[in-house]
């Protein structure tokens, strides 16, 4: 219909929204943009197009194949759901930031060269930070700055890698890299920051809980999954990713068990779930890459549902901590939100008939068929932890929980506005559809799928795992809900505490040293400056020293220069020049003869 890269549909659309003054029309445009983008996606043939000449290089804005289309489809779908959930917001800047963010992510997905990849990569970071700042709390301001700094650092590393790559190979094509080169290592590092791979992950659970209710829904989908896409595109089969991914899957799970802030808990489960994808990319077989793509697709859907559900709870109750919500019988006031949240929770926990079951099992099976026993066990254990925290602990703490008598009533809570319910509803519906009819998803995957999730053994084994996790939870449920409000240390400690120490070092000892050096230089310069106004002082000092009188330079310089003090009789000048001429004449005659 329109021959425009989907990235520009969003970016132009984002700039158009604030120009329209009628609110209904603004909302209509905001919802129309993803529909327009989806139609464009359907009509985009596979191949390489939208090439532009820039300096001496060809930029490629349309590298379209099954892998890029898979990610583009889900990004466009979730942008519609996210915008529907956010459409009641009057502050247009939030929508603009969200769509610049979506557009730049689509730019990354279809980028065929490293320059446009980097360009969109940076817009992504710059646009998304506003989704944190719009929350307008002191915590969000600070978290936003940390988020921006981490991503700018990652972007700088990525740019360094790209520059090295281009100067080594002379090509800007974005293709699989050879990890033995330094350039590829830099690029991988930049990608790993956005994929939130520990120890480079702390920006995620730091920033996402501080974002706006609606903005965080967008953030859960785009940054980490676009990083999974670029990893799948260029580092498939890199062995270190297998281990990083499996560690990541467990890392997030362990933090989630002790976490009480509801969106921070879910953020740790993004780290965990992206771990499955990173691991699958590292395995690199066709089945594993299919698994990574499928899991990214499903994860975006259910994670949005989970964040929308918890966002609704925060919006309607004003509370964000399990300790402030447990035992208040919220299930009586927000049953629909609970139901839709549980669809997301069952999906992430890979309950049969929900979409996580058709994608996560594929990755675990890929680890099995690639003969990686430790990895398989690690991913299996992470599945247990996922159901434990997201499927049991969180809903139990937020909607149920045993009252201990100290609870205050949450009188004001009710179901969220209709548009938020619709957003959650569509997300939940898609989780179920892709769960029950996995072929709808499988036919979008990059390779041919020869995997059947619904075998009796798979179903029975999953149910065994889930039911016994429930048993384990039931034994420890009160322990999991207990505790004080606290924060968990993570690798952001290094830039928050160590960073502050560096700052304090600069502010105090280093600054004092600078002061010292500066004042020493200033006083010397001042002496030289006043000396230049009164050079005779130096001679006088010399004279006084010879004659044994003790005077300091400062003393001598205090008396201003007065030419009358030093004026000599004319005769001395004439005499001196005569002597000079006489000596000159002598020398001249000597040389000439």
């Amino acid at each position, binding site marked *: 219909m329109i021959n425009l890269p989907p990235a520009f549909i969003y970016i132009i659309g984002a700039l158009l929204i604030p120009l329209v003054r009628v609110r209904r029309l603004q909302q209509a445009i905001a919802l129309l943009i993803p529909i327009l983008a989806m139609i464009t996606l359907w009509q985009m043939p596979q191949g390489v197009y939208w090439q532009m000449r820039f300096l001496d290089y060809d930029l490629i804005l349309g590298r379209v194949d099954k892998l890029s289309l898979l990610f583009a489809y889900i990004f466009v779908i979730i942008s519609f759901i996210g915008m529907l959930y956010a459409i009641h917001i009057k502050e247009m800047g939030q929508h603009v930031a969200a769509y610049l963010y979506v557009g730049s992510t689509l730019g990354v997905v279809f980028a065929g060269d490293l320059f446009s990849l980097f360009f969109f990569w940076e817009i992504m970071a710059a646009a998304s930070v506003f989704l944190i700042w719009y929350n307008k709390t002191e915590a969000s301001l600070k978290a936003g700055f940390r988020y921006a700094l981490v991503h700018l650092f990652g972007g700088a590393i990525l740019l360094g890698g790209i520059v090295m790559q281009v100067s080594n190979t002379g090509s800007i094509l974005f293709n699989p890299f050879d990890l033995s080169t330094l350039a590829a290592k830099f690029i991988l590092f930049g990608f790993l920051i956005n994929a939130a791979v520990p120890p480079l992950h702390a920006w995620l659970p730091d920033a996402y809980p501080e974002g706006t209710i609606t903005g965080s829904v967008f953030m859960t989908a785009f940054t980490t999954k676009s990083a999974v896409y670029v990893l799948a595109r260029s580092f498939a089969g890199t062995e270190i990713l297998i281990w990083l991914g499996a560690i990541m899957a467990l890392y997030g799970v*362990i933090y989630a*068990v*002790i976490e009480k802030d509801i969106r921070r808990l879910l953020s740790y489960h993004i780290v965990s779930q992206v771990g499955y994808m990173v691991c699958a990319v590292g395995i690199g077989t066709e089945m594993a890459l299919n698994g990574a793509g499928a899991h990214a697709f499903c994860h975006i859907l259910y994670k949005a549902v989970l964040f929308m559900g918890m966002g609704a709870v925060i919006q309607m109750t004003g509370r964000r901590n399990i300790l402030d919500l447990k035992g208040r019988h919220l299930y009586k006031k927000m049953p629909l939100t609970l139901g839709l949240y549980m669809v997301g929770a069952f999906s992430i926990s890979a309950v049969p008939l929900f979409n996580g079951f058709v994608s996560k099992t594929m990755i675990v099976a890929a680890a099995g068929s690639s003969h990686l026993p430790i990895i398989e066990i690690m991913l299996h254990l992470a599945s247990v932890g996922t159901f434990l925290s997201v499927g049991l602990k969180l809903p139990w703490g937020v909607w149920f929980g045993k009252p201990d008598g100290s609870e205050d009533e949450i009188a004001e809570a009710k179901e969220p506005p209709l548009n938020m319910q619709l957003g959650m509803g569509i997300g939940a519906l898609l989780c179920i559809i892709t769960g029950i009819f996995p072929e709808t998803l499988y036919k979008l995957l990059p390779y041919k799928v020869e995997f059947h999730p619904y075998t009796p053994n798979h179903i029975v084994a999953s149910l065994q795992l889930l039911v016994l996790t429930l048993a384990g939870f039931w034994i420890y449920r009160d322990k999991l809900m207990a505790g004080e409000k606290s924060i968990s240390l993570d690798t952001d400690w290094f830039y928050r505490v160590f960073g502050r120490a560096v700052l304090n070092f600069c502010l105090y000892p280093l600054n004092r040293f600078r002061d010292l050096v500066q004042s020493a230089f200033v006083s010397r310069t001042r002496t030289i400056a006043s000396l230049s106004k009164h050079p005779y002082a130096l001679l006088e000092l010399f004279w006084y020293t010879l004659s044994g009188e003790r005077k300091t330079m400062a003393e001598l310089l205090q008396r201003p220069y007065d030419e009358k003090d030093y004026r000599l009789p004319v005769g001395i000048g004439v005499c001196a020049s005569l002597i000079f001429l006489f000596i000159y004449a002598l020398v001249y005659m000597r040389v000439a003869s």
Partner: protein
Amino acid sequence: MNPTRLSRIMMALILALFVLGFIFPNPHPHFWWQKIPAFDIFFGFLGSILLIVFAKWLGHNWLLKDKDYYNHD
């Protein structure tokens, strides 16, 4: 629903899954533990307890700090 009845249902469910584990063994086991029938019963139970105990221990002894930890100057 009273707790005794709930735990009875739970027990029955676990028993049923245990039996089903024997009826539907893994057709393509890659590792030795996949040949054990109803392995996931043990893995789910022990795994969840292990995760809770380990994470709680780690949180208690190291990771969890006062909520003003980063605000101290």
